[in-house]
Each structure stands twice: as structure tokens, then as C-alpha cells.
């Protein structure tokens, strides 16, 4: 340290810490930790018989109970694979980075943003889109229709899917729980009033009330 350097405040800042003699030691510790983690991960991958994918790969997916096959790239998202390769166009691409929920798809029972899920990671999993939902009076789509929980309808597949996934885990939600359950979705037409009514009505209908 020279005289012109600002005086350190009481206690050492992170910058002072790194700047000081302990820098080399700290780096060594971090490096050792990282090396250990990398080694562990590599061992895990080997045990799982993982392989590096590149170029185009053939992929079989279980979509709505049907085995569907297509060619994808490892970087292809589940959403683009469903929409472009398999013509399953219910889920929509809107923000393409997991902020609006229009792409919501149920994978192994849990709702996910299919725009930020790699298709190759869904092999062997059960993929459900809203096309497979009950369209009868006890289904979520019917409730959205009857309560006008949609206008242009482009966010609707995401809301319907998120709603179905929520009701599967919480069949009797309060209004506040419905709001929280659907907070991962955005509607631009402003159809929320109908959406909230529809979700509550769907909860009742699914129980046969």
C-alpha cells in the first residue's frame, strides 16, 4: 500500500482481502474446491453413462401419451421442438426466456417453462400439453371458456396449463392461492378477472361440485 491509497475502513473489505497477501492462498483454496467439484461431477456423469451430444440427434418424446420422434439439435428447446418439429402448437412462444409462462408444459407432473428447457433433457419423461386436457364440463378449458378467461388467447394455453398443474396439487385454492399459483404467467389483453373466476370455477368443477 502506498500513502495515496484510501485508508481501509474498519475491518477488511473483500477487495482489501484479495489485494493482500492472502490472495494467493485464497485462490489456491478456491481452485482446490473447484477441482474437487469438477472431478465429482465427471464421476457422476460417467456413472450415468452420459454422452456428449452435438450436431443433430434423433429424439423420442412421450407427448400426451404418444411416442413422438424427431430430429433436434442439443440446443433445441422443448418448446421449439414441440411447436416446430412435432406440430404440438398449444404451448406458445412469447418471451422465450421464462418470464411470461405462455410456454408452460407439464413434465413428470410439474409445470415448467418449456422455452428454457432443452428437448434432449426430456427424453423418458412424461410431457403433457393442454391439448391432452379434458375439454368437457369438468375440465379447465371449459371454465376458461365459460368465464371468458381469454381474449386474444395467446397467453391462454399457459394459464390453462398452470391452472391445471396448480389444481392437481391444490384442489381447493383460495383466491389468494390462485393469484400466487398463476403469478408466473402474463396476459397482455388484461383478462385476469376472467382468469381468476375461471380458476375458482374449475376447482369446483373438477371436484364435481
Amino acid at each position: 500500500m502506498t500513502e495515496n491509497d484510501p485508508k481501509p475502513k474498519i475491518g477488511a473489505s473483500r477487495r482489501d482481502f484479495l489485494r493482500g497477501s492472502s490472495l494467493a492462498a485464497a485462490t489456491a483454496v478456491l481452485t482446490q474446491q473447484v477441482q474437487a467439484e469438477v472431478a465429482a461431477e465427471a464421476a457422476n456423469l460417467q456413472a450415468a453413462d452420459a454422452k456428449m451430444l452435438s450436431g443433430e440427434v434423433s429424439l423420442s418424446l412421450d407427448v400426451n401419451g404418444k411416442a413422438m420422434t424427431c430430429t433436434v439439435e442439443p440446443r433445441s428447446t422443448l418448446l421449439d421442438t414441440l411447436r416446430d418439429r412435432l406440430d404440438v402448437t398449444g404451448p406458445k412462444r412469447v418471451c422465450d426466456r421464462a418470464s411470461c409462462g405462455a410456454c408452460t408444459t407439464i413434465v413428470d407432473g410439474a409445470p415448467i417453462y418449456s422455452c428454457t428447457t432443452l428437448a434432449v433433457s426430456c427424453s423418458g419423461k412424461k410431457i403433457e400439453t393442454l391439448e391432452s386436457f379434458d375439454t368437457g364440463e369438468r375440465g379447465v378449458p371449459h371454465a376458461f371458456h365459460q368465464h371468458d378467461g381469454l381474449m386474444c388467447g395467446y397467453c391462454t394455453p399457459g394459464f390453462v396449463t398452470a391452472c391445471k398443474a396448480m389444481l392437481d396439487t391444490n384442489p381447493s385454492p383460495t383466491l389468494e392461492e390462485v393469484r400466487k399459483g398463476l403469478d408466473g404467467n402474463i396476459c397482455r389483453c388484461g383478462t385476469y378477472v376472467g382468469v381468476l373466476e375461471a380458476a375458482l370455477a374449475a376447482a369446483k368443477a373438477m371436484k364435481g361440485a
Partner: protein
Amino acid sequence: MAGWPESPRLIGTEIPRLDGLAKASGRAKYPSDMNPPGLLHGAMLWSPHAHAKIKSIDLTPAEKSPGVKAVVGVMKEGATVRYQGEVIAAVAAETEEKARDAVRAIKIEFEVLPHVVTEAQAMDPKSPEVFKGRGLANNTRKGNVQKNGDPEGGLEKADVKIEGHYSAPVITHVCLEPHGLTAKWDGPDKLTAWASTQAVQVTANELAGRFEIPATNVTVLTDVMGGGFGSKFGADLWGLLAAELSKKADGKPVKMFLDRAHEHLAAGNRPSAFAHVRLGATKDGKITGMIAETHGTGGASGGANFPLPYVYLVENRSRSHSDVFVNGGGARAMRAPGHPQGCIIMEAAMDDLADALGMDPLEFRLKNLGERDVVNQGGAPAPINRTKVYQDQVRIGAELIGWAKRKPRGTNGAGPIKKGYGMALHQWGGGGAPDKQVECMINPDGSVEVRSATQDIGTGARTILAIIAAEVLGLEVKEITSNIGNSTFKPGQASGGSTTTPSMSPPCYNAVLAARAELFEKIAPKLGAEPGDLSLAKGQVLVKGEAKMSWKDACRQLGMVPITTLGKFTPGLSANGVGGCQFAEVDVDVETGVVKVVKIVAVQDSGLIIDKMTWNSQVYGGIIGGLNYGLFEERVMDPTTGVMLNADMELYKLAGASDIPEIVVRAYETEEMKARGVIGIGEPPTIATAAAIGNAVTNAVGVRVPHWPMSPMNVLNALASNQGKA
């Protein structure tokens, strides 16, 4: 022609939309869902810079990129790009991933030029003039002063005056389905496009013009579409590029839709509004004069003007408006273009003057409506004085929000959470165009179809035509096929200006009335009756009120030939000119600046309502759009780099389910209003919300929050500024 039925069975009731289940079950096919055989995917190279000259561009690497079938250059070497997002080239490839790779492979060098991206930056005399040759100074086009009466004299006569600076930022449309279309050539001069558009025929004509083929050879299809809000009226450059790429790729279909960032940058926005307002009134609350200087930016293309004064009668007034040009994507019409801005500026000034007068802002507003504000009737029976309508609406709204609980500005208790109430008035046209047509077909099997080249952008237009047909024919709504979204049909209205329903309802009604008359002519002899004795109800043909034959049997009498009629517009079935008022109740935390909207009340007239369910949805939606404008939305530009900082959907904030307050909608639907006929509702209810919220926040915190949105930053800045801390 006849007026609307006096005691309708269906019109005015709540009817779920015809395409609702298809949309809610993922079965509706949007233009962006179309995957015709052989489909290629398009992608575009757009400028990453706000202002730059293209030093060199080489498309060859894209052409050689795997899977690429066509490449089209838009801008050549030496060309100048004027905003981030301006399109430079386009490619079509076998997959979207490959198309994007090809775009990345394009070799391009820019000479980055100085930019201006905010209003302040553009108007700063030290900033560069980036729009040369447009006759601008400081990147600004000064408008003429519009003057009425004696504004200076009026302000001198005032007992109380206020002076305010108010503003609202640029916001973007954020249509959830991006702009774009899928184009496909069938032979050298026949083109089909599935387009996400608010105007199938405008889009078809643009495509026909660009490729110099007969308009009849172009078919634009829009069965459903994912939102437009005023930004989707044509083919757009990307639509033309899709068709050009398809042509180059031997007619294979090409799908070209914008990505989310590009949507924010290049697919339209609502211009900003900045105002310096002086407003004065006598001590009994009559406005004496107003002087307003305003500016705003519509990006690189101008068009930022807005109505001011707004709603209220200001005889002595002057207004000058300047358009500021910035290196940003061009403005487009957005839900009630100009009105939300005019409403914010006017209603903020009205509230501030009421506060300075020590008057209830509601009473102050009522005192300053013109004595008579007669709106265009479009042939409706009796003139409407909108001032009387406003007086009624304000009374109803005040009761519903609990206006009596409102306290004067800044007297909302000592705790950190302050409650406030605010209100605002708005107006809109919403009349019908007189040149649209609807066809009606009654088939021998009893099926009925109405068709026209309009489209349903989510408003319920498809359902409305079916309701009208079912009403006239005594059938159920679901028994009617409403066939729209096809440019080759008879001329239909573009979906803008809240004009679709008032334009399409009269020709639809007339077409179905004519079809019914023809049916009666044909079957009356078989029933041994006069056509005038026949009527229809509950799927039956009645003779002098007695059911004689089922609808299906009656249609079977037509033999092989269906009835086909054409309906045109007749005056008297629709009208123009609506008013409305909205009230907001908010809780504001003055320590964090966070605003929670507790309740919104909207009272709105729109003549005769056809479907109360979709009408309500439109009003709720308008309010929620206004809530977004009032609380969250703002395009954030970085003056240093010239790029938009929130071209996404996490930092570009929009309301989610937890942000939605209690919303009370009241249709102002008196017999007098119903007699006016049909008026559009898409735009009016989105106008006043942001203004009412801003006034409620100001009432709560005790100082004017002059800049929208009512974000924590703007609220805290206003509070700090009042304490001399800004």
C-alpha cells in the same frame, strides 16, 4: 331499414365467445402455429446500434450456411441504420436454429455514429443532429401554436393559477403473438399468407402491390391472432421479406415472426408526452385560461401529438407541440392513440388546480364541462349531450368508489401507508365505417353462415356477428358459423379505432334480415300463409305466432339452392362518441414508494351492447392496460450505448395476477344509450386509468407525482423533491 329488435333475446346478454374453447384447449391455430409442409423458418439480422453506417456487408457466409434456402439483403453497404432493431437482411433455412446461425454468419462492419435516444438527449443543443434534411433544430420539429380566445388574458383574470410539468414515457405494445406471417407461393403469381394482423385486406393489398400481382391472387388468413393493440395493420417489412424469401425458395412456405427483443425495438410503441401547463380558474372554480407547451417522441418517425385540452371546456387556450426525433423504433397507433397521454396531462393539471382552489376535484371537473357537448350521431335518433352523460356517470362512479371517504391532498394520516383517491374522465369516437359488407347464407341443411373480411383480434368480433344472426333467425349462437379472417371475402373493417363492431354489426344485421325475408317468401306458400305472417323463434317457423314447422324442415324446402344475401351499412344502427369516468383507490408506502392499487371503478357508455360478456372483458382489459401504464410500463433507453435496456418481459414490467385490484365495471346503458345503436368499446376504457391512479397517488402522498409510471422511483423522487432533497 329496421332498427335493432326492441326486446332482444340474445343481444345484450352474456354469451361466451364462439372460439373460446378452441383457444382454451390449445386447438386454435394462430398464424404463428402454422406448419405447412416444406416449411422454412425465417430470421432477420437487425441493427445492434442506434445509429450507424454499414461499412461493409457480405451475405455469402449466410448463403453457404447449412440448411439455408434463401437470403435477402435489405440494406447495402453505405446505408445508414437509424435505430436498434432496424432490419438489415433476412434468411430462410430448414430450421429456426439454422436460420439464426446463418444470420450470425453474415459479415458486417459498422461505423458507429453519434446517437440520441432519449428526449432530453435529443433536445440538448450539445447533442448531434442525427436527422439531417428534415428541417429540424435540436432534433425537434416545432409545431404551430394553436390558439383560441385570449389565453394570456384568461390566465391574468384567474384568481388561482397552477404551473406544472408532467410526463409519461414511451411504452411498447408487447403483443404476445409477435408480428409476422407465414407466406407461401402457389405458382408465380399466387400467394397465401397466414398473418398475425388486425387487417387482412390491408395486408393482402400490400403483398399484392409489392409483388405486382392481382389482389385477387393473394389470400391472407387470420383465423385467430395474438394481440395487436394498434400495431398490426399491414404486412410490414418482415412480412414482405417472408414472401420474398419464399419466392426465392421455389415457393416453399416461409415463417417469419419477430423475437421478443425485436418486438420491443421495431414493432411499434406509444409516444411519450411531456407538458408544461399553466392553468387558471376563478375562485368559484371556472377555468379562465390555459397555456400548454408539450413535446414527445415517436422515435425516428414523429407522430407524438395528443389531444389537449382534453374533455373540459377551455375557451382561452394556447397549445404548442413539438415532435422530438430519437434513434428509436417508430411509434404506431396504440389503444386509443394520443388519448391516454392527453388524459394524464389534463387530469393532473385539473387536480392540481382543484387542490390550489381548495375544491373537491370532482366538483371542479363537473363545473368545467361544456354546457352542451353534442356528439356525432351517425344517424341515431336523438342527439346526445355528453355533458349530461358525464354528470350521471361521475355520480355513479363516486358512489361505487366511496368518494366521500376521500380526504384532501396530503391529509392521509401520519403512518407510512397513505390511502388516496383519484379520478379522471375520457372520451372516444368508436363509430362505424359506412362501406363494409357482410354475406349471409342459409343452406338447405339448415346451417347458417355469415362471412366478411374482418377479423377477431380478441375482442369477440366473430361472436358478435353470430349473435346478431342467431337473434334474427331464432337460433342458438353456436348454430351460426361466423366465417371471418379471410381477405378474399367481402370488404370487412380493419380492427382499429374501436370501429369493428359498429362497422360490421349493421351490414350483418341487414344481410340476415334480407336472408330471412327471402326464406319467408319461399316457404310462405308451402305453409299456406303470407310472408308477413311468418316469424322465427326457438328453431321453429311460426305462422301468426304459432309454431308450424321446424327450422330444418323449412330450410329443406329450399331444395338445392341456398339463400345468399349481401348486407350493407345503413345509418341509425350504430353511432359515434362515448364518454366514461374512472376512479382509483390506492395505498402508497411513502417509505418504499410502492403503490398498491386497491380498487378501480369504471363507468362507461357505448350505446347498444351486443355481448355483455365480451364487453365486460374489453373494459376489464382496458383498465388493466391502463394500470400497466399507470404503474409499471416504461421503455428504458441507455443514453450512452443507445440501446433499450429492458427489451424483454422481466424488466419491461407488466401486471400479473397478484397486481390486479378489485375492479368494478358499470355499463352506462340507459334506454337513451341503447337507442343510439352499436358503438365500439376496445379503446375508451383504457384511457383514464393511468390518470386516475396518478391522481390517487398524489392525493395519498400529498405532493404531485408528476412523472408516470407511479414507480417507487418516481414516487420517492417526488417526495424528496418536495423536501428539497432532489
